[in-house]
């Protein structure tokens, strides 16, 4: 197991290096002159040149790259122009917000898509199968920001059921003492149920938006995996032996179908982390997605670099976790490895 983990990490290193190089080049190609920004309005070309020299931006690219990597090694991701803070502290404070939102969205999506997929597989070709396909596909066919805005309009503006899209928490509550950074968990740890409810309320609409968007791949994969498992020999045997259909489906078929579903979940999670930049913008969610987008628009490239690197590392860890989970679910995989 340890050797497998080690091997996995080593193969990830070239991609990480590639990411660092590509991000560096990409941000240097971005239009926008940091030196002009720092020199302020009404700066003469000479003043801008001075600031450029001070920031080291007049050095040849390879030298700048070396300096950048050296800073990275020291944990210095640079400073953001738009927030004025060190990028690493911005990311540390904003990552839990995005992660909490994405996880809740995934949980909601699973709760709907998995039963739907199983049902569609069990009653293949029926109305439910078609309905499942249409509903799932419809969810993924709308741009995610549009879905978000529609939900805000319907549930906040018209009906008043959802709280104001002001971010993670209403202005009159203080966040729970920081343990994990996940407000839901931290408020439960602090045994403050009222706070828990106050943290849950703003999460629902954005999580629902993400869930609608991720229904399709999960439902589709569940359906496909269940279909292939239901056609297999051991299920036929179970049925022939007279086991109740419910037991056949849940205990035997689904357990075996879980493997590809888990892979899909991992893929969907990493896709969502990248896709929630738009959802965060609509709901004023203080996550890393909105952080990166605002920085990119402002040609503030240190946060963009930090964001991309953080995500790359997270993907590697995520894939590793999924592989390990594989091993837990399916012993054959462990033995083969």
């Amino acid at each position: 197991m340890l050797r497998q983990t080690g091997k996995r990490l080593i193969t990830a290193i070239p991609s990480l290096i590639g990411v660092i190089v590509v991000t560096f080049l990409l941000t240097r190609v971005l239009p926008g002159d940091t030196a002009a920004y720092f020199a302020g309005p009404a700066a003469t070309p000479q003043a801008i040149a001075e600031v450029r020299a001070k920031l080291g931006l007049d050095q040849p690219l390879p030298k700048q790259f070396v300096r950048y990597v050296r800073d990275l090694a020291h944990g210095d991701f640079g400073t953001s122009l738009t927030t004025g803070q060190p990028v690493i502290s911005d990311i540390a404070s904003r990552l839990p917000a995005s992660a909490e939102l994405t996880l809740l969205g995934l949980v909601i999506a699973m709760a709907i898509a998995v039963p739907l997929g199983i049902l569609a597989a069990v009653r293949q070709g029926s109305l439910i199968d078609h309905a499942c396909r249409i509903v799932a596909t419809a969810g993924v066919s709308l741009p995610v920001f549009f879905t978000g805005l529609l939900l805000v309009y319907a549930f906040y503006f018209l009906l008043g059921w959802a709280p104001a899209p002001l971010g993670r928490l209403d202005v009159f509550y203080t966040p729970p003492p920081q343990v994990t950074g996940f407000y839901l968990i931290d408020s439960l740890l602090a045994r403050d149920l009222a706070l828990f409810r106050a943290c849950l309320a703003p999460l629902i609409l954005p999580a629902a938006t993400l869930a609608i968007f991720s229904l399709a791949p999960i439902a589709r994969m569940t359906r496909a995996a269940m279909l292939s498992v239901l056609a297999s020999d051991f299920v036929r045997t179970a049925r022939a032996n007279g086991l109740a259909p419910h037991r056949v489906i849940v205990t035997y078929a689904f357990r075996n179908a879980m493997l590809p579903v888990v892979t899909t979940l991992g893929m969907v999670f990493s896709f969502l982390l990248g896709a929630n930049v738009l959802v965060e913008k609509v709901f004023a969610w203080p996550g890393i997605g909105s952080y990166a987008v605002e920085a990119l628009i402002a040609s503030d490239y240190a946060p963009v670099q930090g964001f991309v690197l953080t995500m790359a590392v997270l993907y590697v860890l995520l894939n590793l976790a999924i592989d390990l989970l594989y091993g837990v679910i399916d012993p054959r995989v462990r033995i083969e490895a």
Partner: protein
Amino acid sequence: MSGAMRMEPGAVAAPAPPAKQTSLLSHARHVIGENPVTGLAFGLFVLLALCALLGPAIAPYDPLASDVAAKLQAPSLHHWFGTDEYGRDILSRVMVAARLDLGIAIFSVALVFALGGVSGVAAGFFGGWTDLIVGRIADTIMAFPLFVLAMGIVAALGNTVTNIVIATAIINFPLYARVARAEANVRRDAGFVQAARLSGNGELRIVLTQVLPNVMPIMVVQMSLTMGYAILNAAGLSFIGLGVRPPTPEWGIMVAEGAGNIISGEWWIALFPGAALMLAVFCFNLLGDGLRDIVDPQRRT
């Protein structure tokens, strides 16, 4: 044909009747019959294609002509889809935008197939260094949050339609490369490939003329899904301000601009392009599912 055949001396036997093969067309008809939703998707696709081809010719108004006196009008007999904040007719803009959006979808997919498909097939077929390089490139791209990478590419290169197409192609590259590679790997030592080798075809020629066409059907499914994704991608970029330039009509940018008007009650500005966009993506997704049913040999009975 039934009955015994009388063989006249010296006559050549009439050729045997052709074996009943399931042709692609009849198989397709069968699948559509089985699955009406796929049929619906095909119909929608035809409608969209017609709009794209004929759009500018049959649109009632000039999509770029502003008429400030008529701005922000709800749908009416004069303007079936209403007007936007410049007084432009939304129906005309939606119809003309079909061309641009389908264009973006088709070109993105063509580009990514050319790049990813060919690289993947080469990687799977030749193995060795080719495989290693293509694999590394794909892994590096996959390590990025894909939408942010697209944003970065468009921000760096400038927001033109060409760059949006390029960005979409780049972020879908790993998927195509991976699928193509897997398929090529399977067929590397297949019978027909050996035969082509024996008849003296160069390796590259084999890849392009033998393997690639065999890989196509599987890829077509993926291409249909990517077309929907390309349109959504362009819409997302427009929401951030990195989409096409005004005043070009494009569904995504129309939705993004109209989104702010929902709260003030002018729902038609975002709804109609949004519905068009959704129908197009929906159509491509269902089409992909349907094509998968047609193309997947395991499903053929």
